Each structure stands twice: as structure tokens, then as C-alpha cells.
């Protein structure tokens, strides 16, 4: 249980930080609303609702990216990450705690974005909601590990989208399929498979990303 206690403490730390400083979630909210407005002007007037549903996934992907870019900002300052490495018994707890915090931010942003999408464009069904939840798990699991990698490099914010987007393409396929496809369950199953594979891989390899 000590492992879960570590994870809980780390996730709570990020949420408390956000509650006090409020520097990530408002940015994500404002960004996703802005991008929905951009979509309205991107879509030609006679385009179908399917196109809008596809574009929703662009919005989700980039909102997640925005949150992930900031994910390790607090740890980077004053090399606070070294303290975390010393404090935790198992370093993968840092990954899990951070992924949970990012998941909460992303879910909160979507709690505003999805109704806004329904208001601006078209209704969303159960398939989309299931797809969004499953996709969020994958985005946060993979994204947190890649954000830690990007933090270690000189390029940082520049690097994260480059390494993140190719890995996120299967998530987009699954998500769009769950939203607009005729067999949403197949795509939801695919997303669950993706989540399982990459969460396991990220959990097992996070130790190596942090240490030498």
C-alpha cells in the first residue's frame, strides 16, 4: 500500500499546486474554447457533422499537449525532481502520480469542452464519451513519460509535440472511430488495448528516463 500512498501524495501535490497557482487548467480551458471557435471558421458552411466530430479530436489532442508541456514545469525549477527521486520508494510512482494529475486536468477541460462542442456544433453520443475517456488514459500515460523525456532535453517544449504526435496517431484513429464509426465498440476495444500496452511500457521504463 505504500506504493499507492506515494502515488496519491504525488497526485495531490500537483492538484494542490494547481489550486494555488492556477497556471495550467485555465490555459487549457481557454485554449480548447478558442480552438472550437477556430473550427467553426475552418469548416465550410455545408460540411457535415462528421467533419466537426473529427475535428473535436484535434482539439482534444492539442489541449492534452498543452497540459503535458507544463506537466514537469514545477519539477524542473531548482531541480526539484531530484528531491522526488530521493523521496519515493519506487520511481514509477512519480509517473503514475503525474499521469493522474494530468488526467484530472484534461478531464476537467473536457467537461467544459464537450458541452461547448455540443452547443456549437452537434450532439455527442455515448461512443464519443467512452472514446474520450479511454483516449485520455492513453494520452496521459504516454504523454507523461514523453514529457519527462522532453524535460531532460535542451529543446523541451519544441521536442514534445514531435515525439508525442506519432505515438498519438493510433489514439486519434480509435477516438475518431468511436465517435463516427459504425462499430464504436471495436474502436473502444482498440483504445483499451493501446492503453494497456503503452501504460505498461511507460510504467516499466519510467525509471530509466529519470536516472542515469
Amino acid at each position, binding site marked *: 500500500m505504500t506504493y499507492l500512498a506515494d502515488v496519491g501524495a504525488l497526485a495531490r501535490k500537483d492538484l494542490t499546486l494547481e489550486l494555488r497557482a492556477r497556471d495550467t487548467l485555465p490555459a487549457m480551458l481557454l485554449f480548447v474554447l478558442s480552438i472550437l471557435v477556430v473550427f467553426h471558421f475552418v469548416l465550410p458552411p455545408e460540411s457535415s457533422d462528421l467533419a466537426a466530430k473529427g475535428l473535436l479530436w484535434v482539439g482534444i489532442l492539442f489541449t492534452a499537449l498543452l497540459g503535458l508541456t507544463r506537466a514537469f514545469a514545477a519539477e524542473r525549477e531548482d531541480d526539484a525532481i531530484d528531491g522526488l527521486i530521493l523521496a519515493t520508494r519506487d520511481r514509477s510512482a512519480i509517473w503514475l502520480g503525474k499521469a493522474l494529475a494530468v488526467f484530472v486536468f484534461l478531464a476537467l477541460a473536457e467537461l467544459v469542452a464537450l458541452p461547448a462542442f455540443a452547443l456549437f456544433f452537434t450532439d455527442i453520443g455515448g461512443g464519443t464519451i467512452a472514446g474520450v475517456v479511454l483516449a485520455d488514459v492513453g494520452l496521459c500515460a504516454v504523454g507523461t513519460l514523453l514529457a519527462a*523525456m522532453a524535460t*531532460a*532535453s*535542451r529543446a523541451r517544449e519544441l521536442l514534445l509535440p514531435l515525439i508525442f504526435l506519432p505515438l498519438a496517431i*493510433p489514439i486519434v484513429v480509435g477516438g475518431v472511430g468511436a465517435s463516427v464509426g459504425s462499430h464504436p465498440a471495436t474502436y473502444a476495444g*482498440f483504445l483499451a488495448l493501446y492503453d494497456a500496452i503503452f501504460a505498461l511500457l511507460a510504467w516499466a*521504463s519510467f525509471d*530509466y528516463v529519470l536516472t*542515469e
Partner: protein
Amino acid sequence: MRPDRLPVFAASALALMASAVAVVAYVAPIDADQGFSQKIFYFHVPVALTSYALFGWGAWKALRHLWKRDERADLESYVAIHLGVIFGLTTLLTGSIWAKISWGRWWVWSSDQLVLFLVLFLFYSAYFMLRFSVEPGPRRANLSAVYALFGVALIPVSFLAIRLSKDIIHPVVFKSSGPDMSGKMFLAFCVSWAAMLALAGTLYHVELAGKRLDQRLKELREVLAS
């Protein structure tokens, strides 16, 4: 591999390449459906398979680095992925030429393999961005290795994703019931594939030798400077 064996290996790769060209040109029959242009298949598919083999080899070396702390594995993994990207780009180019001849367009999203190679090309190009924006050292080796391992997981997952995302018009040559080819076609294909693997192996050892020499030179310079 010992350096004195490399010329022999390179010569056999060259001989295999020459015989592959000969077998493809003279032994393999003209395809009844697509005519002469189908012969690009004997290069396109072996190059693609060799590219997978190189990515797999790179991931294997990455695993060796993380697991056994094999010091030489980092450079070997990098060289394999570097060559894999070059072979992957060749796959994209030959595939594009074949698409133009068969389907009349330079790029078709309906071809699973081409789209997969585009995704992999983007993914492994970012590998270089990652690798060269981190200071050389154990940290960089770890990050590169983890990224390379993500790559081999991405290959089947992306393939499944692309299959799911569209209807299929790409000719599927390898089916579960065995290859859909005549004996001579299969022979040409095998010779060509062996040639590509030998070529990849030669390039791998040449690049590795060069990189090791570079490293050695750098170490010697540091010794001299201090």
C-alpha cells in the same frame, strides 16, 4: 564482427545484390495482372521487411542496454535505427513509384503499409531530434533506448489502427494460407530479400566501425589535451 571480415561480408552483399537484380530481371515471370511494373515488388517489399528488421534490431540492442547495461549497445541501437530510417525512406519512395504506376497517384492513403511507414518515419525522425538535443552520456543512452522500445510497440499498434481506419485495396501478397506467388516469383523475392539483409548488415557494420573510430579519436584527443 572482426574488421578484417568486413570486406568479405561486403563482397558477398554485393554479389547477392547483383544476383538479385539478375533473378528479378530474367527468372521471375512477368506478372499477368500488372505487367513489368510489378517487378518493383521485389525491391519494395524486401526493403520494407529489412527496415522492420533494423528497427527490431535497434529495439533489441536498446533492451540489452537497459537490461544488461551493455555499453556498446547504445551506439549499436542508434546505428540500426539510423539505417532503418534510411530503408524506411526508400520504402516510401519505391512504394510511391509503385502507387503512381498501379493506381495513378503518387500517394494513396488506402495503402496500409505506406501509411504505416509514414508514421514510423515521423516517429523515428523524432528519435534523432530527441537524441541530439540531450547531452551525450548515460542519460541520453537511457532516453534513446526507452524511445526505441516504444517504437517496436508502436509498429503493430499503428498497423492495427491503420487497418481499422479504412477499407483495403492494397494487394495482400502474404496470406495465412502461405504466399500467393509462383515458385519462381518466390525465389526472386527470397534472393532479393537476402540481398537487402546483407546490404543492411554491411552498412550497419561500416557505420558502426566509423562511429567507434570517431569515439576512440575523441577519447584520445581528451587524453592528449589533459
